[in-house]
């Protein structure tokens, strides 16, 4: 899979996207959580910075605007920190508990749940681009402009279809293509088997493929 969503993201994206060695990532996270627990406010900021690209990737599909995305990201962090605080205060022993807290998985789960309840009828990715089309038509009749317009409209249609997928299919699809999470991590966050996650992804892609319709000519190349 080509990683076209990777450009322009902060440098920590590799860790957040799950491509780094899991050992290294969790050690960092556990160390930061341990520091946060003993009152290190720097560690809190670092934890946010570490996971910020992941959280943004998870919530932006459901956001009506960049500010809405920020709001969703903030709520995701708050709930995940609250869960961690509770789990650790229940767990007692500070050192061991910090390592046991699956903070990143909670972030994913919280983001998925927030997205589930978030208004999805009018995101910035499913808005009809009439304004844009009018502007483009006025601006130029240059070669490629029509194709771009067509793609834009098809994108809006397909993103709407993606949000209308059955819940599990939509969750797996977006965790996979928005956050590039491995299927094992998707399964852990959603509480299903890795195979079930793959099946959900296949079903989602088949549905969306049907929504696309028959390809005309060499369009797909």
């Amino acid at each position, binding site marked *: 899979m080509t990683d076209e969503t990777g450009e322009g993201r902060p440098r920590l994206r590799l860790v957040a996207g799950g491509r780094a060695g899991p050992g290294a990532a969790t050690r960092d996270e556990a160390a930061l959580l341990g520091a946060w627990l003993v009152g290190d*406010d720097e560690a809190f900021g670092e934890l946010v910075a570490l996971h910020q690209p992941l959280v943004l990737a998870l919530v*932006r599909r459901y956001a009506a605007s*960049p500010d809405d995305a920020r709001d969703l990201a903030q709520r995701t962090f708050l709930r995940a920190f609250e869960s961690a605080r509770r789990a650790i205060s229940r767990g007692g022993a500070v050192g061991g508990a910090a390592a046991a807290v699956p903070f990143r998985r909670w972030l994913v789960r919280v983001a998925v749940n927030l997205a589930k309840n978030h208004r999805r009828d009018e995101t910035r990715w499913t808005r009809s681009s009439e304004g844009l089309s009018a502007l483009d038509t006025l601006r130029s009749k240059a070669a490629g402009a029509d194709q771009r317009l067509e793609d834009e409209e098809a994108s809006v249609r*397909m993103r709407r279809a993606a949000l209308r997928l059955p819940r599990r299919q939509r969750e797996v699809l977006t965790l996979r293509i928005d956050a590039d999470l491995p*299927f094992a991590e998707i399964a852990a966050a959603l509480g299903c088997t890795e195979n079930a996650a*793959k099946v959900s992804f296949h079903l989602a*892609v088949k549905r969306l*493929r049907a929504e*696309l319709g028959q390809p005309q000519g060499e369009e797909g190349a």
Partner: protein
Amino acid sequence: MTACHDVEPLLLDRAAGDLDADGAARLDAHLAACAACRAEAAALDRTLSLVRLPPPDAAEQAALSGLADSVRAARDAAARRRAWPVRFAAGLAVAAAAAAFLVAPAYTRRAPTLTPEEAARARAQAAAAAPAPRWAVPDPDELWDTAGALLSDEVASEAAAPVASTAVASATSAAPLAREKATAIAAADAWFDTDTTTKAR
């Protein structure tokens, strides 16, 4: 899907970015020979590329700047809300102590030095608050008559018995009165009412 049936899983795995080396080799060999599956692979690629979001733009990146600070601020605000009951109780205790400290001297000083109009108002309030007296001060003449009536035993016993029972009934219907108080009043009523009954006769 218009692809060959046994190749479909490979195409979907490829779309998911989850195709192992062995599967990739088999798929490539098939795609080289099958135009329909080539078209289907391209359609799947296009499907996912249309659904995918563009990378975060400048506005999104800017909206996230300082996220750690605002999450921290929201966290602190939540912590303050959690501490609210304890703080409220402590604040209430302090406020009560302060109020007692401020108000107590005012009471001790004010009591003996009521101005005439304050005293009048207090009396008016007391009069309004106090229930109307249940019986008037007995007239000495009536007392004398009653005493005379009581002298003859048969008249007194005849008159007192029914009257006392009605007095108790009326007293118990007066809600705020305690029961023992009611019986005491009933006894007194009976004593005074004997006079009216004797008079009525």
